[in-house]
C-alpha cells in the first residue's frame, strides 16, 4: 500500500471510530435506560454505563493506534532531513461526496500533511488519557443505582434539599466520542466547508460537555455562553467563507493553495478580508481577546472535559486552522494575528495571576499560551507556533488532570482552602511540578537541556527577536511575550505554592488522600509527553519540530514584506535561526522565567499569603465587568426584541390594520344612516339620481360633440 492510500484509510478509521462509539452509546443509552417507579429518569445501571465507557475508550484507543501508525507511515515515507527540507507532499483527496449543487461541490475530503498527522496523534493521545482518567474522576456517577444515585450539591433546589439524580456516565462518554469525532474532522478536513462544519460541531459538543451538569444553573449558563461566543466568531468565519467563494469559486484546500498567489496579487483587499474573516472564527474558538470570556466559565464542566477540550484540543483548533490556511493569509492579516496574540497573552497572564479558583487560573493560563501560539504564527514562526501547540497540549493536560485529582481529593476549587497537599498527595504534587516546570519553560539554554515547554517557548522567542530586529517599529511584539513569560512563571509558581506548600488552610485539605491508580497512570503518560515532546529521537534528527518543518508552507522559508500600508517584513526561517538570535532568545526566555519565579516566591512568602498585590480590582474586572458586557448584549437584544414584538408588531402593524378595519366599519355605518326610511327622501334621491346621471350624460354628449 502506497502512502497515498494507506494514510487516508488509516486516518478514516481513526476518524470514524469515535463516531461509531457515539452512535452505539446514544442508542444503547436510551434503550438501556429503564424506568424506575413510573418516572423516566434515564437511569442506566452502573455496569452498563461502564461498558459504554469502555467501548468509548476502546474506540479512541483504536483511533490512537491508527494515528500513530499513520505517523509512522508518514515518517517512513519522508525520511527526516536537516529540518529545512522542502515542503513534503500533502496527500489530498475525497472519501465521499456530500453536496453537489451548481458550481459548488462539497465532499468529505482530506488534506494530509505532517501537521495533520502530528495533530491527529496529539489529539488521540490526550483523548485516550482523558478517557481512562474519567473512569476514576466520575466514579460516583455509577456508584449507586436508580434515580437517587448521585447527589449534586451545587444545584439549588426549591426546598434547599440536596438534589439527587440518576448517574449518567454513559452520556458523558457519548458526548466525549462525538467531540473526538468532530475534532478529528477539523484536523483532517480537506475543504473549507468541511472545516466550518466540524468547527461548529466541535462547538456544539463542547456545549454538551460543559452543560453535562445541566442541573447547575452556572453550568447551563456557561454552556450557552460558550456556544454563543463561538457563534459570534463563526459569523466572521462564515463571512470569510462567502468572500472566499466570491473570490475563488472553490473551497478545496489543494486548489486554493495553488491559486492563492494569483488572486493575492490581483485582489489583495479581498484576500485580506478572507483571511481576517477566517481568523475571526479562530478568535471565537481559541478564546482570543475580544471573545475570551467563555473559557473561564467553561470550567463549570467536569475537569476531564476541561483537560481535553478546553486546554489541549478544541481551543487549539483555532491555532491549527491558522496553520492550515497559512498560505491564504496576507502579511497584514498575519500582523493582525500577532498583535491579537500578544494582547491576549498579556491579558491571560495578568488575570491568571490574580484568580483564587484553581481551574480558572489554568483556564487563563491556556488563554495566555494560545496567545503565544498566535503571536508566533503571526510573526512567521509557523513551525514554532505549532510546536508550542503540541507541547502545550501535553503539559496543560497534565496540569488540568492534576488539578482534577486535587479537586477530587479536596472537593473544592478554591486555592484559599488548600495548602500543604504535597504531604498528602506526593505523586500528584510531583507530576504537577513537572507540568509547572514545562509551562515555565525551565531548561538550560546553552546545553539544549530542558522540558518540552522550554524548547517551544525558546523557538517562539527566536522569531520574536528576529521580527523585532527587522521591524523596529513593531518592537512591542517582542516585549509583550517577554513580560508574559515573567507573569507566566509568576502565576504557575503561585499556584504550586498555594496548593502544595505551606499549611493546609481547611480541614478537608488536612485529610485529603492521594487519587486512585486509574487517575495517576494517565497523568504519568501525559507527564512523559510533557517532558519528552521537545527532545529529538536519539540517534536521528527526528523530532516534533523537524516533523512539522516538513510541511511548513514555502511562504515561511524566506522573508516576506507586506503591502505599503503596513510596511512589515516577516523574518524567514534562516534569519530566525542565526546563532546570535538564538542565544539572545534563549537567555531572554530563561531570564524572564527566573524573575517570575523569584517574584512569586517573594510575594506569597512560601504559600502563606494568597492575595497578590492589586489582585482585587483585577478580579473585579474579570468576574464582574467582563460578564456584564455579554449580559448587557443579551439584555439589549431582548429589549430590542420586546420592542419589535410589542410596540411594532402589535402596535404599529396590528393597530394600523385594526384602524383601517374600523374606518371601513364606520363608513359602512355612515351609509346605513343615509337609509333614513322616509319614503319622500327615497323618491327625492330617485329624482336627484335621475338629474345627476342625466346631467353627466349630457355633459359627456356635449364634450363628445365638440370634441
Amino acid at each position: 500500500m502506497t502512502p497515498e492510500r494507506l494514510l487516508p484509510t488509516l486516518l478514516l478509521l481513526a476518524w470514524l471510530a469515535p463516531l461509531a462509539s457515539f452512535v452505539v452509546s446514544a442508542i444503547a443509552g436510551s434503550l438501556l435506560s429503564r424506568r424506575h417507579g413510573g418516572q423516566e429518569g434515564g437511569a442506566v445501571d452502573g455496569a452498563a454505563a461502564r461498558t459504554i465507557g469502555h467501548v468509548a475508550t476502546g474506540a479512541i484507543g483504536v483511533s490512537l493506534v491508527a494515528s500513530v501508525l499513520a505517523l509512522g507511515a508518514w515518517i517512513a515515507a519522508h525520511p527526516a532531513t536537516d529540518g529545512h527540507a522542502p515542503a513534503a507532499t500533502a496527500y489530498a483527496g475525497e472519501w465521499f461526496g456530500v453536496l453537489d449543487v451548481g458550481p459548488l461541490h462539497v465532499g468529505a475530503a482530506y488534506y494530509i500533511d505532517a501537521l495533520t498527522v502530528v495533530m491527529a496523534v496529539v489529539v488521540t493521545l490526550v483523548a485516550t488519557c482523558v478517557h481512562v482518567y474519567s473512569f476514576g474522576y466520575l466514579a460516583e456517577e455509577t456508584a449507586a443505582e436508580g434515580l437517587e444515585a448521585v447527589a449534586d450539591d451545587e444545584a439549588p433546589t426549591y426546598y434547599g434539599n440536596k438534589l439527587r439524580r440518576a448517574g449518567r456516565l454513559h452520556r458523558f462518554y457519548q458526548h466525549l466520542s462525538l467531540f473526538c469525532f468532530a475534532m478529528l474532522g477539523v484536523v483532517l478536513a480537506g475543504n473549507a466547508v468541511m472545516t466550518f462544519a466540524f468547527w461548529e460541531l466541535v462547538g456544539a459538543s463542547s456545549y454538551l460537555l460543559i452543560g453535562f451538569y445541566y442541573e447547575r444553573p452556572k453550568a447551563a449558563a456557561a454552556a450557552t455562553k460558550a456556544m454563543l461566543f463561538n457563534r459570534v466568531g463563526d459569523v466572521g468565519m462564515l463571512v470569510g467563507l462567502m468572500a472566499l467563494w466570491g473570490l475563488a469559486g472553490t473551497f478545496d484546500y489543494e486548489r486554493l493553495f495553488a491559486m492563492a498567489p494569483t488572486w493575492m496579487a490581483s485582489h489583495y483587499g479581498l484576500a485580506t478580508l478572507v483571511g481576517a474573516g477566517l481568523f475571526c472564527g479562530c478568535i471565537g474558538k481559541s478564546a482570543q481577546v475580544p471573545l475570551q470570556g467563555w473559557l473561564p466559565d467553561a470550567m463549570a464542566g467536569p475537569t476531564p472535559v476541561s483537560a481535553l477540550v478546553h486546554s489541549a484540543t478544541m481551543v487549539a483548533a483555532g491555532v491549527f486552522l491558522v496553520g492550515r490556511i497559512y498560505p491564504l493569509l496576507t502579511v497584514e492579516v498575519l500582523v493582525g494575528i500577532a498583535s491579537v496574540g500578544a494582547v491576549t497573552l498579556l491579558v491571560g497572564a495578568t488575570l491568571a495571576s490574580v484568580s483564587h479558583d484553581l481551574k480558572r487560573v489554568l483556564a487563563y493560563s491556556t488563554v495566555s499560551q494560545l496567545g503565544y501560539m498566535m503571536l508566533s504564527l503571526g510573526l512567521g514562526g509557523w513551525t514554532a507556533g505549532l510546536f508550542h501547540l503540541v507541547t502545550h497540549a501535553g503539559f496543560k493536560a497534565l496540569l488540568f488532570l492534576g488539578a482534577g485529582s486535587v479537586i477530587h481529593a479536596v472537593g473544592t476549587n478554591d486555592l484559599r482552602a488548600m495548602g500543604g497537599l504535597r504531604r498528602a498527595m506526593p505523586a500528584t504534587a510531583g507530576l504537577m511540578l513537572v507540568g509547572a516546570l514545562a509551562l515555565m519553560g525551565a531548561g538550560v539554554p546553552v546545553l539544549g537541556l530542558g522540558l518540552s515547554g522550554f524548547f517551544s517557548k525558546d523557538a517562539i522567542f527566536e522569531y520574536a527577536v528576529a521580527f523585532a530586529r527587522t521591524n523596529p517599529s513593531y518592537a512591542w511584539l517582542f516585549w509583550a511575550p517577554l513580560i508574559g513569560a515573567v507573569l507566566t512563571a509568576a502565576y504557575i509558581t503561585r499556584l504550586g505554592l498555594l496548593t502544595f506548600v505551606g499549611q493546609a488552610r481547611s480541614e478537608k485539605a488536612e485529610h485529603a488522600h492521594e487519587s486512585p491508580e486509574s487517575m495517576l497512570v494517565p497523568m504519568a503518560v501525559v507527564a512523559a509527553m510533557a517532558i519528552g515532546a521537545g527532545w529529538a529521537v536519539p540517534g536521528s534528527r527526528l523530532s516534533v519540530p523537524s516533523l512539522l518543518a516538513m510541511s511548513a508552507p514555502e511562504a515561511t522559508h524566506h522573508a516576506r514584506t507586506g503591502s505599503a500600508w503596513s510596511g512589515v517584513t516577516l523574518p524567514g526561517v534562516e534569519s530566525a535561526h542565526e546563532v546570535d538570535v538564538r542565544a539572545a532568545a534563549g537567555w531572554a526566555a530563561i531570564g524572564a522565567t527566573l524573575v517570575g519565579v523569584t517574584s512569586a516566591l517573594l510575594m506569597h512568602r512560601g504559600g502563606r499569603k494568597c492575595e497578590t498585590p492589586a489582585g482585587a480590582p483585577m478580579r473585579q474586572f474579570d468576574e464582574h465587568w467582563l460578564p456584564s458586557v455579554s449580559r448587557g448584549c443579551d439584555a439589549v437584544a431582548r429589549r430590542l426584541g420586546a420592542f419589535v414584538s410589542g410596540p411594532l408588531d402589535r402596535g404599529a402593524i396590528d393597530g394600523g390594520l385594526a384602524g383601517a378595519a374600523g374606518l371601513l366599519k364606520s363608513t359602512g355605518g355612515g351609509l346605513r344612516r343615509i337609509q333614513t326610511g322616509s319614503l319622500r327622501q327615497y323618491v327625492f334621491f330617485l329624482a336627484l339620481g335621475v338629474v345627476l346621471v342625466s346631467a353627466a350624460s349630457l355633459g359627456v354628449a356635449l364634450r363628445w360633440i365638440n370634441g
Partner: protein
Amino acid sequence: MILASLVTEPVGVAHYLIVGAVLFIAGIVCMATKRNLLGVLMGVELVLNGANVNFIAIGSPYLRGDAASVGLDGQLMALFVIVLAAAEAAVALAIALNFYNTVHTIDVDAADQLRG
C-alpha cells in the same frame, strides 16, 4: 330664444314634448314633496300621463311626417300605458288602504320604522 320661436311657430311635436316634459317634472316634484299618500299616487299618475302625451305626439303622422313618425305604435303604447296606470293605481291604493288600516294615518312620514 327657443321659447320665443315656439310661441310663434305652428304647433308641432316639440310643443307636445314640452307639455309631456312639464307633466313629467310636475309628477316627480309632486311625488317627492307631497306628505299625503294619495298626493304621491297622483304624482305617479302625472308622470305616466306625461309619458302618454309623448307617445301620442311621436305617433301622429301629421306632426312629424310619415317617415320619422312611430305610426300607430305610439297610440298603441299610450293605450297600454293607460291600462297599466290604472292597474298600478288600483294596487297602490289597496296597499295604501292596508297601510291606513294598520297605522290610521296616510301621512307618508309615518312609514319610517324600517331604516338603517
